């Protein structure tokens, strides 16, 4: 009797093992980006993608696909520092690290830490600060590893529903966690969080999962249900459709941001904290949209 059962189990396992062939294939991300700078400036052309004070990157490596967004803190402008320099250089450095393979896919916080350290290796380090969010897909293990410092973030959507999302890290209202490099005389009075303070998470993903990585310009203006509505329109997994969907999401957020009567998530949160406001939040918007697909060279 027992032997029949164990036999049966063996056979069943063999059959199922034979049927499920998905485990051995490598996954990859097909990604596109779109965004709007706050003042419609494209700024000076920099390598990598920059929208206003935001910056992002998409990088591929043999073992992983990596995305990142960074939101430069605009307050530096009052002190004569261009906030877009810091975020753009941070993202470009992360991209270089990934391309040269100086990272471990399961440790995205390490990418942030190393990249921040490299920024300090400039003879005259850049001044400024930014949030950062890094998303790494490990091709072989099919796991997504993420690191988030500040109020940028990501959503993972499966079957029309959000299955994972990042948490915002804020010190207080409108003051997110941020990596910063300050002039030496101001070092005590400038908020500077260590890259180790980033939240990290890891989870499995499946083919067809949609990953949306964006700065707070999107999440503060568009609630989840609107984002999901837009994502439902994404039917194909080729680059052009993803690009089109990213563009429509960013456009919609951009329109909503300038609507004075709209109760945006930002306004909602402000109301919850006692501030009586309405309307969208004009801000730089950066949207990185990716789909998990099979790896093709």
């Amino acid at each position: 009797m027992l032997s029949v059962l164990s036999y049966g189990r063996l056979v069943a396992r063999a059959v199922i093992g034979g049927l499920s062939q998905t485990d051995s294939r490598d996954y990859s991300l097909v990604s596109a980006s779109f965004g709007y700078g706050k003042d419609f400036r494209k700024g000076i052309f920099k390598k990598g993608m920059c929208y206003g004070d935001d910056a992002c990157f998409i990088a591929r490596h043999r073992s992983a696909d990596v995305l990142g967004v960074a939101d430069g803190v605009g307050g530096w402008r009052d002190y004569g520092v261009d906030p877009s320099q810091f975020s753009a250089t941070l993202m470009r450095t992360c991209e270089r690290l990934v391309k040269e393979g100086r990272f471990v896919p399961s440790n995205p916080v390490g990418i942030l830490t190393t990249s921040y350290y490299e920024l300090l290796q400039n003879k005259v380090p850049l001044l400024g600060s930014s949030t950062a969010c890094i998303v790494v897909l490990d091709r072989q293990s099919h796991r997504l590893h993420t690191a988030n410092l500040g109020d940028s973030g990501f959503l993972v959507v499966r079957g029309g529903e959000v299955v994972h999302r990042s948490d915002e890290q804020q010190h207080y209202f409108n003051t997110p966690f941020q990596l910063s490099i300050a002039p030496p005389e101001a070092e005590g009075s400038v908020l500077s969080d260590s890259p180790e303070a980033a939240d990290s998470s890891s989870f499995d993903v499946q083919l067809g999962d949609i990953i949306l990585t964006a700065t707070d310009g999107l999440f503060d203006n568009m609630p989840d249900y609107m984002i999901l509505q837009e994502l439902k329109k994404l039917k194909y997994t080729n680059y052009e459709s993803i690009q089109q969907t990213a563009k429509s999401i960013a456009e919609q957020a951009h329109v909503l941001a300038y609507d004075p009567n709209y109760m945006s998530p930002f306004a909602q949160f402000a109301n919850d904290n006692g501030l009586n406001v309405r309307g969208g939040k004009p801000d730089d918007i950066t949207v990185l949209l990716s789909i998990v697909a099979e790896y093709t060279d």
Partner: protein
Amino acid sequence: MFPMLTLLSMFYYICLRRRCRSGSRGESLGGRRALVDLGQRSTLPVTVEVEQYAKEVLDFSSHYGSENSMSYTMWNLAGVPNVYPSSGDFTQTAVFRTYGRWWDQCVSSPAQIRRTPPSFHSRDFLELAFEEQVYPTAVEVLETYHPGAVVQILACSLNPFTQNPPADVRWEVLWSGEPTKAMNPQARQFSPTIRPINFPTNLLRLEVNSSMLEYYTELDAVVLRGVRERPILALYKMPMIDISDLSDGEEDLSETGGALCCRSAAADHKHSLGNGYFDKLPYELIQVIISHLAVPDLCRLGQCCKLLQQHCSDPLQYVQLSLQPYWSRLNDASLAHLQPRCTLLQRLNMSWCGNRGAVTAAGFCSFIRSCGMSLVCLELSCCHFLNEMCLEVICATCPRLQELDLSSCDRLQPQAFTHIAKLAHLQRLILYRTKIEHIHNHIFYHESFIEDYDVVVSLLAARCRGLVSLDLWRCRNLSERGLAELVAGCAGLEELDLGWCSSLHSSSGCIQLLCRRLKRLRKLFLTANRTVCDNDLEQLAANCPSLEHLDILGEDINTLTSTFKNAVMINPLWH
């Protein structure tokens, strides 16, 4: 019918075999037949030129950046260019540790060893591996800032990716020149005319000298162009035989006593007139004459006749020996041959020598055991054959050693350095880019893997009160507390390098304290320290009248030159 058929087929078979054999014999006759055919053809075969960027940086003598960083480190030289054709100071380029004459003019720089040939200009090197072996037709170096430092390009016959390295490794010079300074510090592609060589290569070595430049030279990428098939030209044209290349000087040394003299028999009998006027000159005078020869010439001269062989083997000629210019040809056999001559050796420079199996640890140890008793200065930079046993032998055999340079000996394990503690008279020790982990008495450090420099520095302050020069470049954890202890204990410091010590802040007063205590300061490097302020400079000017070299980050060169009247070189970052 059938016997006929079999006979016929046998016949046919035999003829076929003969034809095959004669066909292959024709091919094995080699190139000659092919050449003959070629002459008759109207068009030459097309040779495809392969262009490659470096695949990997294998070895180098120094770099500006930190070991694990991407900024200003040698690893940037691999792959496609990051910056070129832009010019300027970028972190994504490869930069060496020093430039100009600063480091040569310091108190702590070693005296140059005699007999260094004036044609040897190289101060730093790097070795690059490419994917595919080709016969090189051009080498292009993409320099992005202050070009002009490349002085030699060499190619190696060894394929660094091979599993079974051959015993004989040859290096050929593709190009060599003088250190120059380009007219303007902008980016340029440096592509000198290289000599054709008769072996395919995928391992190149660049040697640089930036002593004429005003700032660090920065390299972005290296391109190797070559062809896969041996160029036909090489078979017709004999390479010009350069007298200076005839130098397998070190290989010839292994023919012991191979006197090519035709008068040896006569010289044995008649002590006098066998060597012409040389017999009339006093011994000391001949010694003085030959003391001007470079080492390979000295060895060759010793093969002329017995008298000169006696002179050239005299240990007094080998009191100072620099084998660094001959790094590509030095091997165990050469060391063994030099051994009987070097018993009075005091200063030995074997930097860069012996890599890729040319010198073994055993060969080196036996050389040191027989020649090292009087050694005072030993330079072993980038000697990758060194292991713990070698260090043990050095420290046991050379009790009077005062100067030891082990920079970039990154194969040495941390425990190997414990033997250095036995050297009681050590005055200068360089451990740049080594894996040292623990600290000992009277030793000073360059950047290494030590975690807590405050501890190191307090030990130095306690035990090495006579310290004259200290290099704490990139000692990130050094704090003002450690610095305060250091200046309290080692008040005689003349040179102090605190570049990239990011934990030192001027607001703690540590720099002003430093200025007040170190009255004899001649060189102070505060590279990349953003906190240095005017007060610090005023204190420095007021308290350190001997200051000659100053490296700070700042903007206004005019106030600096007026403040420091005696300063020879000031290196503010922005001009």
